[in-house]
């Protein structure tokens, strides 16, 4: 028996090992596409500056709209990174034949997803850190002082990014091709930002809108972020009168499960096979 046959018979590709390999390549590609990289980091910061300049009022004792908005913006940036980036990028990769080539190789499918999630985490961490730095420097946002709040920041980020990433991968199967992807994806992300308590104070929105937004993850990550960055007294202004962190965890976990199921059921490696 030749060495090559032996190697092949023992062959069991590692999902984690190849996933990390994919993730490193994804991050490298992201940083090489300079123009889109700069815009994806700059957009949340630009929005912060614009909204911070327009709305200067206090919305509760000791809380400015800017502080409210910036907390939501950090959550929204995670949505943009995970959901919007992937739901647009994956159909383009499908058009370019990258996915078909990966599917024809012995790479396990899960390694591709692991690589995407890793990319989103790295970019999300950098983006969050940048946005936080600006918010602390210019908008009187205070970094959490208690370990409990840091812990909340950690798990809300982890669950929020995972849910958004998986939903982004799942959504990527909807557009027929890469050119149509932004037109389908951006409105979804934008409407969620308007209705989930990012650009406007959630409790001031019409009731029906609140009910719809509460079905999706962004409302809950934004609320989780406010619990980290706003004074404890502001909890009374939330819809339930508390931060509802337990419910935040439940809803985000549910979206992780739903997103994962959709990914596994609907992911397409090749363009539609209509001919």
């Amino acid at each position, binding site marked *: 028996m030749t*060495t*090559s046959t032996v*190697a*092949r*018979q*023992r*062959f*069991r*590709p590692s999902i984690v090992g*190849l996933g990390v*390999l994919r993730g490193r*390549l994804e991050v*490298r*590609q992201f940083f*090489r*596409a300079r123009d889109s990289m700069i815009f994806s980091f700059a957009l949340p910061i630009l929005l912060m500056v614009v909204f911070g300049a327009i709305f200067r009022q206090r919305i509760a004792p000791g809380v400015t709209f800017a502080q409210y908005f910036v907390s939501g913006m950090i959550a929204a940036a995670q949505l943009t990174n995970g959901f919007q980036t992937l739901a647009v990028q994956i159909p383009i990769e499908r058009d*370019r*034949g*990258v996915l*078909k*080539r990966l*599917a*024809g*190789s*012995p*790479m*396990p499918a899960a390694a591709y997803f692991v690589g995407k999630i890793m990319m989103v985490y790295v970019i999300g961490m950098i983006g969050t850190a940048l946005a936080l730095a600006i918010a602390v420097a210019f908008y009187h946002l205070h970094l959490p002082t208690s370990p409990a709040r840091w812990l909340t920041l950690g798990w809300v980020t982890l669950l929020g990014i995972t849910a958004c990433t998986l939903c982004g991968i799942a959504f990527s199967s909807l557009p027929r091709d890469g050119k149509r992807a932004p037109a389908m994806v951006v409105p979804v992300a934008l409407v969620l930002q308007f209705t989930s308590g990012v650009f406007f104070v959630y409790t001031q929105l019409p009731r029906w809108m609140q009910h719809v937004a509460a079905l999706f993850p962004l409302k809950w990550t934004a609320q989780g972020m406010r619990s980290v960055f706003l004074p404890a007294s502001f909890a009374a202004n939330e819809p339930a009168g508390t931060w509802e962190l337990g419910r935040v965890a439940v809803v985000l976990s549910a979206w992780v499960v739903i997103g994962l199921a959709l990914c596994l059921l609907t992911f397409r490696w*090749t363009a539609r*096979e*209509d*001919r």
Partner: protein
Amino acid sequence: MDDDNAVIIRGLARNYGAYRAVDNLHLTVPRGEVFALLGPNGAGKTTTVEILEGYRRRDGGEVEVLGRDPRDADPRWRSRIGIVLQSTGEFEELTVEEVVGHFARFYPNPDDPTKVIGQVGLAGKSRARAKTLSGGQRRRLDLALGIIGRPELLFLDEPTTGFDPQARREFWDLVRSLAAAGTTILLTTHYLDEAEALADRVGVIAEGRLIEVATPASLGGRNLARARVRWLDRDGPREQDTETPGAVVRALVDRFGGEVPELTVSRPTLEDVYLSMIHEDA
């Protein structure tokens, strides 16, 4: 499990709505063979090959590729086949050596990326980003990805589209060296000279059916076909089909008392045979 045959297809069928893209197709490709599928656009070549590669589903028939049904493709089976798709892959910001090196990591016993990049003629472009490559160079990168895992069976779907003549010759040499090393190769092509240069056997596919399988020299009874002698006579061009062209030419030389104007003796080319076959079928 069949150790002698790389590909076995029995009664393969695939419909797209009411259109029968592949219709009761039978084919066996023994290990070590270079087999070329010839056929016009839309004949079912790519559908057939992509079913064998595990990309497309089928509506009927049995398929075995390296002893497995491609529907049950797993990484171990995938590590034994190599695929060069019909469309070109675009890797944008990554360099040639990054792409080839990356894919090499997916395989249990890959070839050396630097060596493979040299084999496909991209040595000078190792560090170039994929988006800066020309069409033909991108095709070579695809080829490198197809062979980096040292496949036992290599699929090449119209591999030389967009190549200049020199690049095609180099590609043919590479295919010959892979075949000499024992790789089974299943090739689809439009180019009859390519099939003639590379293939041990060719199959002509038209409207989803395999209408003939033969060696390139004997396709359509080409080796037995009568020769056609053409010349310019006093009353205009003349031609005569014959099994004894030598005798015909000698008679003409005698009659003209020397050189015969515009004399040619020809047998049907692979192209003539092929065109008449797909024409009859359509």
